[in-house]
């Protein structure tokens, strides 16, 4: 019984994740491959830039995984560090 329930929860989780996908991808079929933060003219990842950081967080305040947001490894590290700094200051 508990395993069944867990499977159900997972399905729900993946569905909501898919909903998140649409924020970062232009369309369902065309997936963006490049990192949105490594492009020329991309905003600087900084713990003061709350508007940017909030884009890469779930509604519950968790950091979104890079496989959903398509952020490169280097930028994801910067993001998570600056999100944690902002959390310490109670900005997020």
């Amino acid at each position, binding site marked *: 019984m508990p395993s069944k329930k867990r499977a159900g929860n997972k399905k729900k989780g993946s569905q909501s994740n898919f909903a998140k996908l649409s924020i970062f991808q232009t369309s369902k079929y065309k997936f963006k491959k490049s990192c949105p933060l490594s492009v020329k003219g991309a905003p*600087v990842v*900084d*713990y*003061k*830039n*709350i*508007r940017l950081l909030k884009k890469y967080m779930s509604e519950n305040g968790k950091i979104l995984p890079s496989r959903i947001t398509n952020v490169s490894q280097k930028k994801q590290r910067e993001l998570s560090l600056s999100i944690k*700094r902002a*959390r*310490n*200051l*109670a*900005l*997020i």
Partner: protein
Amino acid sequence: MNLYEHTIVARQDTSPAQIKQLTDKYSKIVEKNDGEIVQTEEWGLLNLSYIIKKNRKGNYIHFKIKGSGKIIDELEKNEVIDKNLLRYITVKVKKFDLDAKYFSKKDEYEKKEYKKDYNRD
């Protein structure tokens, strides 16, 4: 010489005079230790995202400091025992971003962004 960004959060019921006092106090500590304050920013009274010591809001003061690491030791030593402060953070940076102001006219920016987002959908 290193570059540091230093932010402190004061309690919600500190008066403007007290905030100025705090700014002066920590500026003096920096100057005593042969440091230089490049810029001071007051972000004003902001909502905290969670309650800290029964405070819902906090006064944010942001310093950009140029100097050696000794300054930071001295600053944090004083800030730990300061009862007017809730939090402090020091970040070592390679370059100062003096133009970006994320906390002035915050509401206007947000409104614009939201409008853009709606249009996109």
